[in-house]
């Protein structure tokens, strides 16, 4: 029965950074990082897009082999295919998650954390003591790890949260059902990400083209099932691709859920921290979660390390993690969530007219502020929506 200080469940961005940062903050601790799948980073369940500034807090993308594509432009598309081009709107990256996640796990390993692949936590109990007993299955054998702190970074389906008695459930209106293909041999601007908004194409979400290279992209969509006509996400995606890229070769396929809610009310309890998608730490407007997960992982790893050094891994001590997250991004996500709720009522006719009026702003003057101001003057019904964002 191995005794460890920090047991991290899930080697995605949240878990890998948590293990890395915990070990860096307190090198004397035993830190173990578990990955259920046989390879860190695979299968990819992600559109792989990430902003530059957040990424650079953890890793340098310049020339990195875990980058697929550097992005400079954003192309927003209305339901009738009217494009709003935001050229040079800031740098972003499309990652190769199979390599990126492995890179992060390697950082944890370089600090001295043990990385176990094909190792799945299957149960967890406190048993009255001051350590969590976590059952781990690996290669057909089973071991019970005794951990001072368990960091649950086990994604949308988090079981650690459940086992710890935390509420990680989400209402159906705040779940994006997503499907995505890797399409090859298609024609688009490889320096731009494309986002198309339409209740007919992706009700309650958007469809995307995220370039992996010239002629190859992650092409997918997310939708809210409550708003559909009865088809599932894959059927909506098939219809969109049949119209946009009928000749594209489908060389990859994935599905998954993106929670567009706000951070769970309580992301900690005695000896447990929940981070990343598992704690709903996702931007509810964009659905982006990679940088958020890494930032949460850093907070979780550092909080766990400090708490163990102090000899106090109680709920009271670990509450500092939740507060730090809410101060860093959680409160912002509450604002984005209110904005999302306001935007939900825009229909396709309105979006078409919005795109046309925004295009009257000269391309070189299309800053977000100008576009927003222009949109509000032409479409006063947006004012209460935008106002909600700032209250």
């Amino acid at each position: 029965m191995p005794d460890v200080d920090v047991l991290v469940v899930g080697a995605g961005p949240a878990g890998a950074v948590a293990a890395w940062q915990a070990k860096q903050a307190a090198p004397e601790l035993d830190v173990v990082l578990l990955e259920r799948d046989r390879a860190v980073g695979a299968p990819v369940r992600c559109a792989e897009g990430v902003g530059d500034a957040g990424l650079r807090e953890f890793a340098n993308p310049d020339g990195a082999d875990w980058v697929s594509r550097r992005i400079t432009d954003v192309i927003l598309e209305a339901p009738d295919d009217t494009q709003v081009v935001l050229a040079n709107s800031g740098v972003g990256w499309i990652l190769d998650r199979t390599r990126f996640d492995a890179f992060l796990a390697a950082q944890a390993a370089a600090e001295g954390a043990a990385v176990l692949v094909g190792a799945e936590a299957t149960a967890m109990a406190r048993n009255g003591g001051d350590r969590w007993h976590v059952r781990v299955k690996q290669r057909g054998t089973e071991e019970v790890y005794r951990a001072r702190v368990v960091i649950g970074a086990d994604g949308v389906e988090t079981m650690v949260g459940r086992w710890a008695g935390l509420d990680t459930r989400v209402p159906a209106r705040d779940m994006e059902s997503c499907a995505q293909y890797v399409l090859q041999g298609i024609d688009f601007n490889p320096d731009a990400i494309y986002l198309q908004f339409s209740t007919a194409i992706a009700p309650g979400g958007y469809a995307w083209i995220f370039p992996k290279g010239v002629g190859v992209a992650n092409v997918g969509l997310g939708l809210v099932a409550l708003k559909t006509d009865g088809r599932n996400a894959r059927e909506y995606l098939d219809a969109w691709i049949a119209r946009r890229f009928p000749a594209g070769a489908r060389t990859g396929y994935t599905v998954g859920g993106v929670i567009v809610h706000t951070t769970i009310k309580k992301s900690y309890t005695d000896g447990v921290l929940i981070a990343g998608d598992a704690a709903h730490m996702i931007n509810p407007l964009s659905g982006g979660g990679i940088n958020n997960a890494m930032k949460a992982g850093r907070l979780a790893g550092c909080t766990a390390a400090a708490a163990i050094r102090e000899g106090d891994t109680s709920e009271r001590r670990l509450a500092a993690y939740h507060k730090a997250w809410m101060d860093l991004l959680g409160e912002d996500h509450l604002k984005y969530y209110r904005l999302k709720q306001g935007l939900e009522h825009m229909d396709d006719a309105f979006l078409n007219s919005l795109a046309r009026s925004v295009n009257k702003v000269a391309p070189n003057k299309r800053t977000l502020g100008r576009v927003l101001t222009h949109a509000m003057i032409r479409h006063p019904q947006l004012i209460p929506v935008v106002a909600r964002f700032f209250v």
Partner: protein
Amino acid sequence: MRRVMPDTIAVVDLAVCDRCGLCLPLCPPEAIHLELNNLTVDEATCTGCEKCIAPCPVGALAMVAYA
């Protein structure tokens, strides 16, 4: 604890299911489990609310009569 026995409960078609885990946080009584690459719906816990059915991206969940 279930108060009323449901007429129908959710079942998963494992040949279609992609094990993405989207349905787990949607389940109010937490009746869905994902372990060792196997998704299961606990029929004793499922209340038949159907919240998991439509959001499945591949249509792997369906309601069946509860025997």
